[in-house]
């Protein structure tokens, strides 16, 4: 009894309209949301073609040889990472697809397996929040024969490198996500990251920021979300009593963070035990301040979601959004090169997502 994937009609259209010239192969990503009961796929997007100047395109076979062997896995995973960054909360890359000519159908499974593990690994790098036991770690692979358009759907547990393929259902449906609740939240930021004396290279700065962000992410994870101003117990159904409505619902959330650096959450913690006696002192050569506000959005499937899922999905989006922003800032910093040592102020401003 494998997993069941409910897939948007538009995905079927997209996949069938994919132009796959001759004996070439096409790779792509499947985007959606997995829950313990059911999985939803709402979007499919092919891997874009690499710049063909002097390099072989991964998608078009050039003459003899197996195009599957020439598949540029790194290119696929990098695409997946960039797509991942752009997705709103609740949506993620939950699988990959591969279109091959009939003669390569046998090898396709191996390739798909390689791809899904690589994609998942690359996307999870630098993730600041941790998976819980309730998270679904099975990802889907879809093989489509370019001639017969036959579809083979399998899942792999990406947590287990030895996992074998399990069969899964692939069912098309219309209007899968039209009634998905949207959670929004705008979070203010005012984070100061010290840059220690020894760290002046941009790469070191990256390290400082990552460490500082880790602390902030933990506070966010430990924080409390009030959904529409109410502290709902985790097991309460989010859409309780409003399932009949099929209209697009918008709920705004108020978000609270309990500022606790010692890690104690309960007020019963002894104020005097195991604490530092003095404030920590760091000698710094500079600092990085992250200020402003991020708008976060997350979608939740409409199959009886609970308050705890809503909380989780918005928290992760907050962390991901800020984390991606910082990554982009750092990429720019790296391109700028080493700091010359004088007082130097840089403003980076990016549009609101």
């Amino acid at each position, binding site marked *: 009894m494998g997993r069941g994937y409910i897939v948007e009609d538009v995905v079927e259209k997209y996949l069938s309209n994919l132009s796959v010239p001759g004996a070439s192969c096409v790779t792509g990503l499947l985007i959606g949301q997995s829950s313990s009961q059911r999985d939803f796929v709402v979007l499919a997007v092919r891997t874009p073609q690499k710049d063909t100047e002097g390099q072989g395109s991964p998608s078009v076979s050039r003459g003899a040889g197996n195009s599957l062997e020439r598949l540029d896995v790194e290119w696929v995973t990098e695409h997946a990472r960039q797509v991942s960054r752009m997705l709103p909360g609740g949506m993620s890359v939950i699988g990959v697809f591969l279109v091959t000519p009939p003669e390569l159908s046998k090898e396709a499974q191996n390739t798909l397996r390689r791809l899904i593990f690589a994609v998942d690994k690359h996307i999870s790098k630098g993730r600041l929040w941790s998976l819980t036991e309730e998270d679904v770690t099975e990802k889907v692979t879809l093989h489509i024969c370019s001639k017969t358009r036959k579809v083979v759907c399998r899942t792999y547990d990406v947590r287990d490198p030895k996992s074998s393929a399990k069969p899964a259902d692939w069912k098309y449906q219309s209007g899968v996500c039209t009634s998905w609740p949207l959670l929004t939240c*705008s979070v203010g930021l005012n984070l100061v990251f010290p840059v220690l004396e020894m760290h002046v290279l941009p790469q070191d700065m990256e390290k400082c920021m990552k460490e500082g962000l880790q602390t902030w992410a933990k506070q966010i994870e430990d924080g409390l979300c009030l959904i529409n101003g109410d*502290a709902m117990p985790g097991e309460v159904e989010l859409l309780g009593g409003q399932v009949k409505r099929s209209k697009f619902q918008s709920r705004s959330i108020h978000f609270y963070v309990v*500022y606790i650096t010692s890690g104690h959450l309960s007020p019963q913690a002894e104020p005097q035990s195991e604490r*530092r*006696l003095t*404030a920590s002192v760091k000698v710094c050569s500079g*600092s990085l301040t*992250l200020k402003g506000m991020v708008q976060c959005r997350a979608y939740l499937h409409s199959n009886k979601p609970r308050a705890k899922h809503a909380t989780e999905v918005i928290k992760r989006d907050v962390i991901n959004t800020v984390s991606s922003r910082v990554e982009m800032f750092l990429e720019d910093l790296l391109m700028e090169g080493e700091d010359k*040592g004088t007082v130097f102020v840089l*403003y980076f401003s990016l549009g609101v997502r």
Partner: protein
Amino acid sequence: MVVGNIILRLRGSLEFKCQLDSTDVPHVQKVISRTFEALGSQVKAESLVLSLSSSPVFLWPNKGGHATAGEISPNRPCKDLQQLIQTDDQESSRKKSAKKDKNNPTAGIINLTLMTEVTEPGVLSAPTLLRGSKKHHLLQTTLPMDCVVSVLSSESISVVCGTLVGALCSQLGDMEKVALRHMKGTALLIPQPFHFLLPAPVGLVTVVYPAGVPDSQLETQRKELHSLFELPDDRPYLRRANALHFPDEPYKDGYLRNPHVHLNHPALENGKPYLVQGVYSYHHYMQDRVDDNGWGCAYRSLQTICSWFQQQGYVERAVPSHKEIQQALVEVGDKQGSFLGSRQWIGSIEVAAVLDQLLGVTSKIMFVSQGSELASKGRELANHFLSEGTPIMIGGGVLAHTILGVAWSETTGQIRYLILDPHYTGAEDLQVITDKGWCGWKGPEFWDQNAYYNLCLPQRPKTI
């Protein structure tokens, strides 16, 4: 404590972070003050949220006391908050608990946690990254905020919120003073709040002390406070050990405190009880994995007395073990080396010697040649509890006990003794201990009428 009042306790952490561009003192002080000022603004901002512990209620004190739970509006009296707290031991129907609540004025306290809202509705501003390249020292810590306010239970929530915010601000002010007073270079000692229940009319006060500075070095600060609150200058009220112990915070060491408060005192014609003052721990046979059944009773009584001096703030040293007690006696020459590790009994004289050697406490020794004489010692014992209020160790016959109080009638001469029995071998079960009389009132027939007894009456050192 004022009847009709409710106590609210607000705790939480505020992040203290500042950049020192230079380490010279005036600059450092200016930056520290500015940082405290910023924290003051933070506490008065609309983003401050108070979470009512064990409930789904959140309050925004700087938005007029607006709350999440629909039933609570800002003009409701604050005692309504108590109904929203979900306690998980509603069935603690021990017959002593009602008595306990009466004796403990802080029984009905409302706990709140300080939180910050990080959602910012309104003006969108895309994130920016600012890079500063000035060399500096970064000072960082969390301030352990802990405010207690006592308000009329009929006071509205919005007013109480204002009071709490005011308490936070004034605590920040106290913390700033302490931080600046004890700062050395870039070492900032973390200011820690302590609550004290002072005798009427003062009541509940909060004092901030710097972490790591022992009580012995804070005498000047205590002298100032003693004169401010008009406290006697010969006994400690404001040492850290004197801090108020809140009923919802169990003692971590597992010993029972003051089991005698759960007893009904004897009603004597024209008589009244004279009891031990302050807090002691009940030490008895078999505790601390030491099997001293049959020989350790005086040692346990001595431990109870030591626990009293520690908890009243006279000493900082922990309650001594049997080994340490024996070691002390060898050191003063009272016993030979062979005494160590033995199961030899000790008496009142030895108890007094150890108190002197380990705690610097002197004791008066009272001697009665016959147990029957104890019945006539009412006045002396009463006076002891009035002026010193320390537990008494009594040894005689073949037993040692601790006397925690005496009920005595001047006119009829009737007398009862409040005894804490160190011979108990069971677990720290308050019900058993009080029901079975391991802590209980005894009559004069309790003593061996023919044996002689020595009593050790420890004297309070005159210090603050």
